[in-house]
């Protein structure tokens, strides 16, 4: 079974530029999560999708971050404009809706550096 795929793995941008990250979850997983992991901290949830609907985006900075999951499969996370404090690893995870609750499988992450 293929795991969660993310691209790019690394990205360096200047502040005020825009950037987009892509995630392809495990096949059949209805729930998709985006987490932000700042250096030295644990991951923090940004947004959670159930199929193509948003379950929770309460911690997403909506003035600059946006995310979508068209067709309930792939997802993109965008930052526009980026700030220095957005430097972090962005992790995508997916899980089944039913069965073992909340066992989330993580992708390798995208490391973003904002200069």
């Amino acid at each position, binding site marked *: 079974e293929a795991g*969660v795929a993310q691209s790019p793995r690394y990205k360096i941008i200047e502040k005020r530029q825009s950037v987009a990250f892509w995630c392809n979850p495990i096949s059949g997983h209805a*729930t998709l*999560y985006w*987490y932000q992991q700042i250096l*030295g*901290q*644990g*991951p*923090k*949830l940004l947004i*959670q999708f159930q199929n193509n609907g948003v*379950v*929770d985006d309460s911690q997403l900075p909506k003035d600059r971050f946006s995310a979508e999951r068209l067709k309930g499969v792939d997802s993109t996370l965008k930052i526009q404009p980026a700030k220095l404090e957005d430097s972090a690893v962005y*992790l995508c*995870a997916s899980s089944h809706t039913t069965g*073992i*609750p*909340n*066992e*989330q*499988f*993580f*992708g*390798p*992450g995208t490391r973003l550096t904002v200069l």
Partner: protein
Amino acid sequence: AQSVTQPDIHITVSEGASLELRCNYSYGATPYLFWYVQSPGQGLQLLLKYFSGDTLVQGIKGFEAEFKRSQSSFNLRKPSVHWSDAAEYFCAVASYTGRRALTFGSGTRLQVQP
């Protein structure tokens, strides 16, 4: 709101020694509890999980964890550490209902001395 505390930021142990990583959680009901490991440049890998039943759970790579409701703890243990266990370890909690996303602790970095 649920939260997780990992009091040890950094731990160093000798190879072959035993290991215990501490985790305390705050949650209003019986939680779902997890331990994940993250090696440099890698995503998070699930070591073990507790949902209900036996309070001592076994995981991969020889790890185990014990859920103690009275202490709100879910400490991770390994009887003999290998050099390849050097990594960052995260404890996480999730609720039964609602958003079900994970709330992570700040992590414990494990170094293994030869």
